[in-house]
């Protein structure tokens, strides 16, 4: 079976065509670099995504700090992960780079602050 993908690894967004027999990835064409093939195999077997969201901050100049994951998690875990992250509350000051949750939902991925928040 021939499958079509848009690689999301970099802004080139290559259109990749891959052969797939239901369990193994065959010939791949259209990728400008080797990361495309790795992306396609992941999409066909266990698609993963990173997410960015915000966490509430108390006593800060802004009500939020922004966060992302240090590694992508399975696509189907996105909404459960968000629920868990939204339950967190931080107290200002919060510094960018701080890990606020390790091993999100048991995956090898941490929640890290990308934009901190100073004390009001």
């Amino acid at each position: 079976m021939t499958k079509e993908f848009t690689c999301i690894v970099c802004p080139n967004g290559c259109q990749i065509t891959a052969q797939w027999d239901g369990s193994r990835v065959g010939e791949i064409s259209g990728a400008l670099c080797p990361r495309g093939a790795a992306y396609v195999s992941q999409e066909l077997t266990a698609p993963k995504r990173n997410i960015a969201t915000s966490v509430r901050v108390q006593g800060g100049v802004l009500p939020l700090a922004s966060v992302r994951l240090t590694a992508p998690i399975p696509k189907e875990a996105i909404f459960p992960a968000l629920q868990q992250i939204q339950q967190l509350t931080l107290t200002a000051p919060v510094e960018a780079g701080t890990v606020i949750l390790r091993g999100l939902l048991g995956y090898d991925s941490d929640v890290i602050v990308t934009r901190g928040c100073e004390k009001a």
Partner: protein
Amino acid sequence: MKQPKQIDAVIVGGGPAGLAAAVALFDHGIENIIILEREAQLGGILRQCIHDGFGLTRFSQTLSGPEYAQRFIDAVEKRRIPYLLKASVLEVSADKTVTAATRDGLMQWKAGAVILTMGCRERTRGALAIPGDRPAGVFTAGVVQAYINLYNRMPGKEVVILGSGDIGMIMARRLTLEGAHVLGVFEVQPYPSGLPRNIQQCLLDFDIPLHLSHTVTQIHGKSRLTGVTISQVDDKMQPIPGTETFYPCDTLVLSVGLIPENELTIDAGAVLDSRTKGADVDENYQTSVPGIFAAGNVLHVHDLVDFVSLEAERLAASVAVYLREHQLPCCPIPVIPGDGIGHVIPQHISGQRDVSLSLRVNRPFENAAIVVRQQGRALCRKPLRKIAPAQMLELTVKAQQIAPEQALEVSVE
């Protein structure tokens, strides 16, 4: 007002372009400089772009907007480059006097060079002229981004997005992640205006439909938006009667393009390019006013901040030469966008050195090539499997290829 301060360079705007220009200037030995920023923080629009995907080409890793900006803010701090926040530049004159409203009142600088990095702003509903009342609930994508990512406020629950620009698609995903229901993204053009990767990761991943050749033809609601009428458009982008569909919604997000913020540029007397809506510049990023330079989104709208930083660094290298030698090589050779090309930067070159052209196509192409010619002779050719207007392209033309005095024409073949 006090006497103007003498200074080597004033940088107007502390977004990624201004920050990169300041750091590079300093590293070229030009240290008597200042960055003027009207907001309370440095970083520009990146502060509210919390999604990842920044810095892939520059740092070989994918960062969020604030993290990308922070790397440059740290570089500014490390060099102790002076900056002034809440300082809004009101005027840049052709003799390079810069006037700003600051917390200490009006201040003036007499600069050797002025660097314009004011970024861009979003097109609003006014620019579109959609009929209907003006109820609450109609926002631009950037405003929604600021509401959600900076102020913790959701604009609404049932959302229609007009325009398939990258910011609109990114907000479609963001709104969905935060619990809103995005009914669809509607694009008047027959092709998407954002990057393919965003169609995949922001729309398809969340089953958000993308309708091409569709637009909003009526806005409903008195005090709050109650819905929009969407119509299909023909190949001249005119609504087709009988295709109207009503979508009940409380929020309409406009992602219909960015316009460079050039009031200061115009007042300084610099010539603008009607295609980019930014200044007409030479290969040194110098505008038609000697000593005034421009880079970043104020020059032409970029989709990738990595290119913004690179452009600002190239600008800084030229500004350093200008400040030392009080002039730059003359750039008499025009660069003209030909068939299939939306715009090209720079608009003039010297022909004396290798030059990097930034451009966009004006419609999608497949299996085509971007070709640069001088009187029919091809100087350089970049074949591409797929090219969309959403992608800014760069290509380099070697000095030894360029003949003097003839215009360069860039086209898609």
